[in-house]
């Protein structure tokens, strides 16, 4: 089989047209697109829409406020307070709105809203959105959130407020961002609570009995919240690098153009038949499955050559940082395997059909369709939802997503599903190609023309 592989590789590489399409063309296109669309890929713009989260409210705001007022009048922290003080505290506490603090002053702040966009949902809907990856995380505000926050912010007491963050396993980077933001919120609130407690306790210890300076305390509280410093940028910079146009189109063109290897490999079996070399090999004792295996391995090698050349070129000429070499190599091996399986499938089907229609359609239409769906022309995120939903159909899309993730700093665990899917695609196509070729064939000889007919 080695001689078949060497021969097939020489045959393809001796075809200048094929070499131009599978190696030269993607290098040219990735260079042009990298420069032409440079302005479309500023730092972090790849995630322009930010991290989407769903916020679940398990509390009843009005009930919590009513309960707080009642507790203020009857509860333990109204001891030693005069009626006037309690009323004053109650009035002032109404100005403290934990919901407003969380949603408007925190999530709505310029700092956070650049990174996170949120939608309020019920618990069930939020979890469904998380399953569908329509949100990266679900933030759950617990029961009695408003009550507990008011206690924390207005009284000298402190109740535990446990804000839960659930992250989709495929969105671990986004998860880190959301958790970091929520930790910033918690620590900011904690620092405010400590400051407020000092003021209240001092006032009570001095036997004032009346919180004459409560307005000042509340004003201080608002100031602290407004100037809450959330260090999200550091988290992002550490975990994820932004994508440039060169990064994107190097991976996009590579993922697309390896498909042309499948097209070329797909033609080879029928070309052997038409050149009569297929029959000659059979007469020499070579099995048709050895011949098919040769095509599979040749496409695999061809893809590997393409990928190697494109990675080296893009790295040195376009300054593309591919991320972890090992992870990139694993994705590349899986992508090449999938394309080789596809190539073998096209080869068998084309051979059986006895014409090049399938291979031609694949090269002229299917590759373009897969390129569009897979994001080789434009990032899938900017496409209509319907196209985004169909992107799973594209082999190149799986490869591209994986390369981009590794480029932005994701680990192997984050791309392993895509890698497994590529491997599975390769295996399925390989099995199909063997099944198609397994049928019996006969060579119908008529008027000195040998035609192969399916039995």
């Amino acid at each position, binding site marked *: 089989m080695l*001689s*078949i592989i*060497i*021969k097939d590789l*020489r*045959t393809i590489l*001796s*075809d200048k047209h094929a070499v131009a399409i599978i190696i030269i063309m993607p290098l040219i296109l990735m260079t042009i697109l990298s420069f032409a669309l440079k302005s479309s890929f500023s730092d972090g713009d790849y995630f322009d829409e930010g991290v989407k989260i769903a916020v679940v409210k398990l509390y009843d705001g009005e009930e919590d406020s009513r309960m707080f007022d009642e507790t203020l009048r009857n509860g333990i922290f109204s001891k030693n307070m005069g009626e006037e003080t309690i009323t004053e505290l109650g009035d002032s506490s109404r100005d403290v709105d934990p919901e407003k603090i969380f949603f408007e002053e925190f999530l709505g702040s310029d700092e956070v809203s650049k990174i996170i966009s949120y939608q309020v949902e019920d618990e069930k809907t939020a979890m469904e959105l998380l399953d569908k990856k329509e949100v990266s995380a679900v933030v759950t505000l617990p029961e009695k959130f408003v009550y507990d926050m008011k206690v924390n912010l207005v009284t000298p007491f402190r109740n535990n407020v446990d804000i839960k963050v659930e992250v989709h396993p495929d969105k671990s980077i986004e998860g880190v961002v959301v958790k970091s933001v929520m930790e910033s919120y918690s620590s900011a609130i904690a620092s405010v609570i400590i400051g407020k407690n000092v003021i209240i306790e001092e006032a009570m210890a001095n036997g004032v009995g009346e919180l004459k300076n409560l307005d000042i305390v509340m004003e201080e509280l608002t100031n602290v919240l407004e100037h809450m410093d959330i260090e999200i940028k550091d988290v992002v910079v550490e975990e994820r690098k932004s994508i440039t146009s060169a990064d994107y189109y190097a991976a996009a063109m590579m993922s697309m153009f390896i498909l042309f290897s499948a097209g070329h490999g797909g033609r080879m079996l029928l070309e052997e038949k038409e*050149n*009569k*070399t297929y*029959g*000659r*090999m*059979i*007469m*020499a*004792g*070579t099995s048709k499955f050895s011949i098919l295996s040769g095509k599979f391995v040749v496409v695999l090698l061809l893809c590997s050559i393409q990928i190697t050349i494109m990675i080296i070129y893009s790295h040195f000429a376009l300054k593309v940082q591919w991320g972890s070499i090992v992870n990139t190599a694993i994705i590349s091996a899986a992508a090449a395997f999938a394309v080789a399986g596809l190539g073998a499938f096209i080869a068998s089907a084309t051979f059986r059909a006895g014409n090049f229609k399938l291979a031609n359609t694949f090269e002229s239409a299917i590759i373009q369709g897969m390129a569009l769906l897979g994001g080789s022309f434009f990032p899938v995120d900017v496409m209509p939802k319907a196209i985004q939903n169909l992107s799973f159909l594209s082999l190149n899309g799986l490869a591209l997503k994986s390369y981009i993730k590794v480029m932005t700093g994701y680990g192997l665990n984050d791309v392993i599903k895509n890698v497994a899917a590529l491997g599975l695609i390769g295996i399925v196509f390989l099995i199909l190609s063997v099944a198609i070729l397994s049928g019996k064939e*006969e*060579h*119908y*000889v*008529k*008027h*000195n023309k*040998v035609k192969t*007919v399916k039995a």
Partner: protein
Amino acid sequence: MLKVENLYKNFGKVNAVDGVSFEVKKGDVFGLLGPNGAGKSTTISMISTLLAPSSGEILYDGKSIFDNQKSVRQRLGVVPQEIALYPTLSGYENLRFWGSIYGLKGDELKKRIDEVSDIIELNGRLKDRVDKYSGGMKRRLNIGAALLHMPEMLIMDEPTVGIDPQSRNHILDTVLKLNNQGITIIYTSHYMEEVEYLCNKVCIMDEGKIIASGSQDELVEMIREKTQINVRLNRVDAMISERLKEIKGVSDARISDDTVVLHGENADTLLADIALKVSENGMFIKSIDVKKPNLEAVFLHLTGKALRD
């Protein structure tokens, strides 16, 4: 060496090969002669193990070739009718590939490529791509690819189709050279003169059947046709045909324009007597044309149609 017994091959309702039997002995140059569509290539494909027969048996050294495909394929060299080569590879790369397909490698492969390129006389052009070759060169390389593994028997299916006379002569001489080296040849053609030139045994096929077989002499003898001698004279009259009929061995003489058409046996001995008779009658010969019976005539006799119909 090779025995074909009652071989049939049907493609649907078409009987491409219809009860063919023949035997090829070691050292033979065995010709399968017939027009296009006679069933020659189908028969060859079955002998080459590329195609299974509908019924019948093919024995190689007494054993069924279909039970011993691997061993038989190693002992056969097949030159297909079409150029079965890789046009974008060089002649050398083609030979190296086909040699490796038959299990040759290393020095042995290089040695055989050298030997074969001598036989097909392509030494100087082996580095060129095959698509730069002339038709004759491609044909020669096509033959060379079948010789690398030193087959005992070479099956050649119309190896001279579409090439110039010089290349054809070269190929025919190569076939005789290979036969002299001990290789048994099965040669199919619809060119009667090629089969006459090469083959010691001939099977004539038409419409899937063998209509005649034997040595060339046996086939000609079969139709019992005699040599025709056309004698063109300066003038003719009725007397001259009668005088020429008197020659021993002449069976028939008739006048056609300025020519007397004779039929007889052993034309070589008749020519002197004919010249003498013409001279005795005060005439002289402007030209003589001798037509010996050939395989074309045999085919015409048996089928009522010309070989190239």
